[in-house]
C-alpha cells in the first residue's frame, strides 16, 4: 500500500484549487497516503493569506499543493509571492496542472515550484511527486 514517509505525513498541507471537486479528490488521496492535517483554499489569494497568517502558529502550512490556473490569483502568482518571502523559501510546493497547461510549467518552475503533476493523476504518482518536492527543498 502506497504511503508517505512519516515526516511528510505529519505535515500541515494546504490544498488550493478553485474547484471544490478537485479539493475533495486531492484531500481524499492525501488521506489515503496517511496525511491527517489538511487545510483548503479556493484561490491563490486566499492561500497566500492563510500561509502568512498561520506562520509560526500551530496550523503553519508545511506543504503547499496548488492548482495552476485559478480565477482569483493563479498558482504561479501564488508561488512567486511565497518565494518572495524569505521565511517561506523552504515551503515545498507541488503544482497540479491540466494537460492543456503543461506549456506553463517552465514559468511555474522559474517561479519556484518544486515539482508538478498532471491531471488526472494516480495515487502512486502523487506520492512520488510529494516526496520529490520535499527532497528538492532539502537539497
Amino acid at each position: 500500500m502506497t504511503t508517505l514517509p512519516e515526516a511528510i505525513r505529519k505535515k500541515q498541507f494546504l490544498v488550493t484549487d478553485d474547484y471544490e471537486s478537485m479539493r475533495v479528490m486531492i484531500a481524499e488521496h492525501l488521506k489515503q497516503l496517511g496525511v491527517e492535517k489538511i487545510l483548503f483554499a479556493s484561490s491563490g489569494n486566499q492561500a497566500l493569506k492563510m500561509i502568512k497568517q498561520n506562520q509560526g502558529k500551530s496550523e503553519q502550512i508545511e506543504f503547499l499543493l496548488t492548482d495552476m490556473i485559478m480565477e482569483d490569483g493563479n498558482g504561479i502568482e501564488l508561488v512567486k509571492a511565497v518565494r518572495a518571502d524569505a521565511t517561506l523559501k523552504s515551503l515545498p510546493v507541488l503544482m497540479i496542472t491540466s494537460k492543456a497547461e503543461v506549456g506553463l510549467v517552465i514559468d511555474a518552475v522559474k517561479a519556484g515550484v518544486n515539482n508538478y503533476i498532471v491531471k488526472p493523476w494516480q495515487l502512486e504518482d502523487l506520492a512520488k511527486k510529494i516526496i520529490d518536492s520535499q527532497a528538492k527543498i532539502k537539497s
Partner: protein
Amino acid sequence: MKMCFFINPSQPQSQTLKTKLKELGYMVLQTQNTDEIDQAGKQCQQLILFFDDSKFAYKFLKENRWNGFRLFSVLLLLKKPVLSPDNQRMLASVALEVFGIEEETQLLEKIKKFEEKKEDDLDIEFSIHKELEENQ
C-alpha cells in the same frame, strides 16, 4: 472516488437522492462548470450527473460530450424522465446510461451496474453513440 454533480441550480434538490448517493459512497456537489465536470470525470473515470430537465440535459451534454466529456462514462439521472423512443435515443447519444429517479426501487441496482462498466464497454458504447449522432 465516486462523484455526482447536481447540474440545474433552480431545481429543488432531491434530498432523498442525495442521501442514497451518499450511502453508496458518492460525493455530491452542485456545479454547471463544464471544465470542473470534465476534470472530475477524467480523475474519477465515471460520473453521475443529475438533471431536473431532460431537454437541458441533452443540450448541456451534447455541447460538451464530443469535446471534453469523452474520456469518462456518464450515468445521467433525470428527475423527470422522458420516455418517448425519440427522446430516449437522443439522450442515449450523450450518456452511457440514462435513468429516471422516479423509479426508485431500481436506482441502487442501476448505479451498481453502471459502476461495473468496464472501459471496453465504454469504447463500444461511445462508438455506437457516435454512429447514432452522425446518422441523425
